[in-house]
């Protein structure tokens, strides 16, 4: 606040002016398109290679790569999880010492983590990293996965959508299916640990095994509960209320509950393939494979082809930027091969992109972490122009890579970005375009923002910070640590 900031005022005017109408129109379009009888449904999507580009001065090899990008079709073998000491060059010895000290008091305490799937999905990804670290710190942690028939997982999928504001017809039969599988899982599992961490709504009912004598129960909710289906929430709430503590990913995602609620930001692993440092040669190779010209600015949005990520809005923003700055747009994501809706959105994006050869659209397979990492590192500006979002991990990934990030001010993103200091929040196509232009034409400001963003990610969004929060919470719940006293 110590400096005047005239550009900021301009951006606010854009947010409040025409731009708002534009967003509303897009929201309306999304609602229409979400209906099952979408006019595009069933039509085959255009393959990326079928796009035709207009005449351009671009060297032929760029055009060739943009039409036929070299996409890795081989799934690489899984990476071994890192050890705690591997993080020392990133977070420093004092931080690591602090983690070890916090863990020393918990040595021998046992933890059970429960979720609904062992592979795929963000929660499994987090647990795959977190549990080896807890075990290394001599806090034996067991990971259990609930089981159920197709009928159970259909119900939980319905609940998942309903809790995030979707429509749902909750019947007694549905409640019975949920409770019956909850009981089966309760009977199958043993609950002898000191701490139980139950992830998400699917296994929430396991808390019925809570004993007065032993163990503290924590519900880690990764879902945005700001606008839940009332019936589904009323059904689940009495179970949630039995927990000793609940954890949410953003303050906006919570409900009024009687017990203490904690804020744990979703974290990224700086040593994962998606985030680890890469040699410049590899980044160049990936750019070469995809026809990206590194001599000109690159604007990138990484996300699946989903209307809520507003890829068409990103194309529109790019077109406004392109009038002033010669740049390229990379839209890279997945989900278009196995999801009919994704294929439709991909087609819409390609239509919006038209014959502009500087819009590079990449439909990548799920094992493209290294390529995505390289694309982010090759970017001048990273965009995440979502219209609805939980916690945008691609935002954190961009911050970690020291890139200026322009993101939609929705869901958990305002928690990730301190506007104008660690990134920029936008509300419209025009606002997004203006901010990208500003960053491209003020590289020193963009570089400082990138530096701040990386520090922000280091301070709040790394797996090591997350681990520290778990250790603190365990100590507080077990009565070992009291606020404002020395451990």
């Amino acid at each position: 606040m110590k400096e005047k900031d005239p550009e900021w005022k301009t951006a606010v005017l854009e947010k409040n002016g025409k731009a708002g109408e534009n967003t509303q129109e897009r929201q309306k379009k999304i609602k229409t398109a979400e209906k099952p009888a979408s006019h595009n449904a069933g039509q085959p999507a255009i393959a990326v290679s079928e796009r035709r580009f207009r005449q351009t001065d671009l060297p032929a090899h760029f055009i060739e790569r943009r039409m036929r990008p070299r996409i890795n079709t081989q799934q690489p073998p899984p990476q071994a999880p890192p050890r705690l000491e591997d993080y020392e060059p990133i977070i420093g010895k004092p931080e690591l010492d602090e983690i070890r000290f916090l863990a020393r008091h918990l040595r021998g305490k046992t933890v059970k983590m429960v979720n609904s799937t062992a592979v795929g999905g963000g929660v499994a990804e987090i647990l795959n990293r977190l549990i080896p670290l807890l075990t290394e710190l001599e806090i034996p942690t067991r990971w259990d996965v609930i089981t159920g028939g197709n009928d159970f997982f259909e119900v939980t999928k319905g609940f998942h959508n309903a809790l995030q504001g979707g429509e749902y017809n909750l019947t007694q039969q549905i409640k019975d299916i949920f409770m019956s599988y909850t009981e089966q899982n309760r009977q199958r599992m043993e609950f002898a640990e000191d701490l139980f961490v139950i992830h998400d709504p699917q296994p929430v009912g396991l808390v019925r095994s809570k004993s007065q004598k032993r163990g503290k129960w924590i519900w880690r909710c990764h879902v945005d509960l700001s606008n839940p289906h009332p019936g589904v929430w009323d059904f689940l709430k009495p179970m949630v209320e039995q927990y000793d503590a609940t954890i949410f990913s953003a303050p906006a995602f919570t409900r009024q509950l009687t017990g203490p609620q904690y804020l744990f930001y979703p974290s990224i692993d700086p040593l994962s393939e998606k985030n680890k440092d890469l040699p410049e040669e590899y980044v160049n190779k990936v750019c070469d494979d995809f026809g990206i010209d590194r001599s000109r600015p690159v604007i990138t949005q990484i996300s699946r082809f989903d209307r809520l990520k507003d890829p068409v809005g990103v194309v529109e923003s790019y077109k406004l930027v392109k009038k002033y700055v010669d740049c390229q747009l990379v839209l890279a994501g997945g989900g278009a091969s196995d999801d009919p809706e994704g294929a439709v959105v991909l087609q819409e994006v390609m239509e919006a992109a038209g014959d502009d050869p500087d819009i590079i659209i990449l439909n990548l397979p799920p094992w493209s972490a290294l390529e995505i990492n390289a694309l982010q590192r090759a970017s001048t500006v990273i965009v995440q122009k979502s219209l609805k979002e939980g916690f945008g991990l691609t935002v954190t990934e961009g911050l970690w890579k020291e890139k200026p990030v322009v993101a939609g001010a929705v869901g958990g993103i305002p928690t990730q970005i301190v506007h104008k200091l660690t990134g920029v929040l936008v509300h419209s196509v025009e606002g997004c375009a203006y901010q990208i232009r500003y960053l491209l034409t003020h590289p020193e400001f963009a570089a400082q923002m990138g530096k701040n963003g990386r520090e922000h990610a280091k301070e709040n969004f790394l797996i090591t910070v997350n681990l520290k929060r778990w250790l603190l919470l365990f100590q507080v719940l077990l009565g070992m640590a009291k606020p404002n006293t020395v451990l």
Partner: protein
Amino acid sequence: MATAPQLPITRPRWARSPFYFNSASHLLRIGREKATTLQELLESLRTCPESSIFQHTFQTLAEHHFIREGFSNDFSHWAFASCNEVELAEQLAAIDVREFTFIATLRERLIHIIETYLQKNLRAATRVAMEPFYLMASDLVVVPTPYVARNLEEFADGLRKVSIHAIYYHFIDARLRLKLNTNDFSVWLEKELDMGHAADKLNRIDIYTSTLEGVRRSILKVVETEMGRA
């Protein structure tokens, strides 16, 4: 054979009580209050727990320790970025938390600034902000570190090695513990090593125009100057 002239042996001055470097970790609790207008924020400020005021003023400095300019406290940032009330934001940003040794006094100051501003700008009170303000609270847990100082050299060594959270804990958070307009480093230097001048110099370091790493460097500069004198 001529003998070399004997140089006076300088011994480090030893403290009567050593300085134990601690660090601070915190758990963020989500509060019950949420403000969508400045009037609602004002009402929340009157009723929220002290731990919330602490979180959004003192603790937020630790969370944003890497920002050199443009960030003072969460209330100011919200008034600026979400309410577009630049004058109010400037007034709130001018609050220096180090002037406060009690959260209650800090709360009164925040309320006074917002109340006065809203009396002059009636429409600002109920204008809906672009993003709501969620009141959080912080539970600070103090974690000992292996670093202990019995003299100035060991003190400088500790300062170089501890995490930035330790600097925050001893230099900024200390005021609320000590209930004095000073910090743990200054108190120790003055009490244990009779270095009132250095203690005073540390106390004048501006935390709002520097990152916490910058603050660490400034502290070290003062300490190293004293070492040079000894």
